């Protein structure tokens, strides 16, 4: 009984009785999740373009971090060292293609997987032989301590909040654009998502949201944004979150209307229902935006502690994702990459160089590994255990889907928060240290309901 009480009742009471602490746990989880995402991202890149399940991603993080520290120890200034390490990762990609991948075209996925495990052993030995195996400190000049947001100088706070807001706006645009693309591709019947991207009603709604935001921002009586008074910042965020809420409400309204309309039209069971996948995508995205915005407002007002270093990691991850998204969607190489991911033979037949593409993805994964190496190495020191974060990224992968970049991000956040909350509130009841497996079980339970992962393509089996 006591055990059940500890498992089922106690945690909820704790959560409700100390919401500020819970908020800190959630934010800590989100930020840790961002770091998992960074590692998962490297996996996704390579799997997407070459179908290789690259177990060496973790050791690539270690290798990058070792190289960076090694260079810095030899007196190279940090920015130059980062650039040089990037070059090293590039060279590594070329070598891997030349020595391994080239000879393994058309092999079974499991063989390639095993080859990357061989690569893991090799790189581990090589990196440590080259740079030494003692634990090293990586100092990149960002303090790894808690920042009290309410205690910050106002200017700083504005910077933080502006950055967050800018990210949110970018994300909103991304979602709207994505929804638009989906609608254009005629994947959805009816007006569900069209409501988000175009159509007069939705434009009016979005416009209203923006107007509301601008009204709070420009015409608020007490102060100006530039002079940086607290009230203004809060208003800024409040306006943003209200705009988000309005958009979310619009989506809910339209989805509901759409489904109702269909139901009334009396389509047979299973007929004409648009893929829920996309609706979930938009829903989750918008809900996330609203929640983040509201969370920031609340965090600022309640004076929650945020780790400055983790915030830096989050910003870095966001930037990387944005760059990668643009790279994948908008450039010629990106298109070639997607073509290769779809079908190797078909891509070859239209003149895409498989080898070139492989070098590009491995190099990109190397750069992502460098980013992850900077973040993780700066946080916990550079040592062998760094390569084990690959194991942390795997549940993120199955949650988000092996081929989905947004999946890696959202999956990372879910795992990060789930893991931290479970460890803090439920861990004591079962003896603690559940971080190792909780993420896996969480991902597993999720998979049982959605076998292809959060954003994976629905597999239609045909014979």
């Amino acid at each position, binding site marked *: 009984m006591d055990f059940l009480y500890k498992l089922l009742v106690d945690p909820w009471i704790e959560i409700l009785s100390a919401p500020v602490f819970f908020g800190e746990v959630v934010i800590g989880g989100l930020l840790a999740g961002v770091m998992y995402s960074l590692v998962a991202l490297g996996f996704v890149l390579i799997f997407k373009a070459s179908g290789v399940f690259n177990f060496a991603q973790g050791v690539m993080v270690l290798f990058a971090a070792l190289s960076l520290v090694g260079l810095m120890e030899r007196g190279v200034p940090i920015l130059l060292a980062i650039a040089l390490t990037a070059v090293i990762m590039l060279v590594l990609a070329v070598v891997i293609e030349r020595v391994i991948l080239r000879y393994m075209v058309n092999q079974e996925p499991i063989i390639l997987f095993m080859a990357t495990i061989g690569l893991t052993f090799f790189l581990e030995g090589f990196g440590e032989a080259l740079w030494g195996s003692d634990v090293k400190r990586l100092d990149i000049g960002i303090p790894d301590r808690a920042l009290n947001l309410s205690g910050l100088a106002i200017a700083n706070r504005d910077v933080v909040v502006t950055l967050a807001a800018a990210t949110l706006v970018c994300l909103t645009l991304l979602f709207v654009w994505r929804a638009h693309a989906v609608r254009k591709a005629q994947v959805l019947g009816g007006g569900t998502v069209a409501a988000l991207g175009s159509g007069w009603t939705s434009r009016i709604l979005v416009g209203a949201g923006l107007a509301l935001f601008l009204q709070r921002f420009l015409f608020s009586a007490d102060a100006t944004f530039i002079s940086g008074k607290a009230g203004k910042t809060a208003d800024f965020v409040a306006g943003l979150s209200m705009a988000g809420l309005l958009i979310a409400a619009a989506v809910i309204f339209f989805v509901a209307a759409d489904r109702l309309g269909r139901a009334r039209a009396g389509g047979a069971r299973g007929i004409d229902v648009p893929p829920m996948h996309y609706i979930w995508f938009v829903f989750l995205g918008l809900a996330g935006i609203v929640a983040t915005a509201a969370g920031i407002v609340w965090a600022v007002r309640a004076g929650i502690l945020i780790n400055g270093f983790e915030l830096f990691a989050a910003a870095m991850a966001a930037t990387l994702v944005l760059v990668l998204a643009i790279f994948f969607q908008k450039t010629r190489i990106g298109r070639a990459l997607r073509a290769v991911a779809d079908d190797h033979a078909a891509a070859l037949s239209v003149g895409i160089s498989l080898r070139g593409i492989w070098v590009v993805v491995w190099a990109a994964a190397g750069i992502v590994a460098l980013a992850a190496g900077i973040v993780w190495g700066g946080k916990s020191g550079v040592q062998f255990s760094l390569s084990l974060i690959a194991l942390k990224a795997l*549940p993120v992968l199955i949650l988000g889907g092996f081929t989905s970049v947004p999946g890696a991000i959202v999956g990372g956040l879910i795992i990060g928060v789930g893991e931290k909350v479970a460890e803090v509130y439920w861990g004591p009841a079962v*003896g603690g240290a559940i971080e190792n497996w909780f993420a896996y079980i969480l991902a597993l339970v999720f*998979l049982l309901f959605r076998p292809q992962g959060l954003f994976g393509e629905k597999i239609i089996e045909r014979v």
Partner: protein
Amino acid sequence: MFYREAGQFKTSYAADQAIFPIVQDRIFVLLVLLAAYIIPPVFLGSYWFNAILIPFLIFSMAALGLNLLVGYCGQLSLGTGGFMAVGAYASYKLTTVIFPDLGMIFIFLLSGLVSAAVGVVFGLPSLRIKGFYLAVATLAAQFFLQWLFNKVPWFYNYNSNGTIESPPRSLFGTIMEPGGMLEALSFLNPLVTSPRATPVTKYLFALTLVVVFALIAKNLVRGRVGRAWMAIRDMDIAAELIGIRPMQTKLLAFAISSFYCGIAGAMLLNLYLNSAETLAFGINISFEVLFMVIIGGLASILGSFLGTAFIVLTPIFLTNALPAIGLPLDTAGQKHVELMMFGGLMIFFLIVEPHGFARLWQIAKEKLRLWPFPY
């Protein structure tokens, strides 16, 4: 010249379906078995048993089990270490608390059964997910089981140091010991576990277990069950449409595979380590066993042994060979070079022969068929 099947005509389906249809193969296997039973006990010292032969046999057992699951049934699993831990902890609980009088042979089989049951539970996701998704899902088993045995004191009898130890037990238990019902047979009942048992006894026990279970594996894969596994592996939809039930087939594969791994775990504790913590059954073991299976050859019983030999012997070889050629390395440096060479060799063999040593063996046999004539 010597390896010819020409002239060996089969007159019945029974002869054609024998386990080794070619006469030379039969002779060869018999010779290897004889050598395995006679040469090491007579000629080799305890270093050979403790460092090479016994670990080889234990991991062969695990590799056999994993090959049934991955090679034959096509379900990728990274939970081997966890299932071995189940076998080891089950054998510990069984010998110390539940059946202290029972002989080791029965303890091993029971440990295998416990592991099989756990394997079925963690095999359930395979009904919904495939490939690497499943592989990662089986890691859940690995981490969860390791945590469980670490955190719940019942599993290690509330020891203060959290380790499990192999108690001295004989092959068939007290029933054949002085005072037991079958006292007269006590010469058949040697002490097989704990440091007090001789390496030779342990080796012969392990060898017999492995030989019997290799035979069982071979029998399984050449019959109905094996065909059902391979059908699921090659094309699960078509398999279902000819009446093979995916659920039963996959879960059976998980059960039998975990059974083998469980016995291997029990062997690891009782015949090799003597005392262990959960660390001994970590994720590294899972990867190593998987690599044994792949480098040896997926869907090959012989391959399981060849792959195990490679993974067990290579590090020992490197450790001894590197100082011998006079590389001026400190211990850390030597460890790094070993890692690099091990990784490099893995990649090299995968590039040269992705179908594993079993395929190389097959090619060698093809060549032998013609030798010494060019065709």
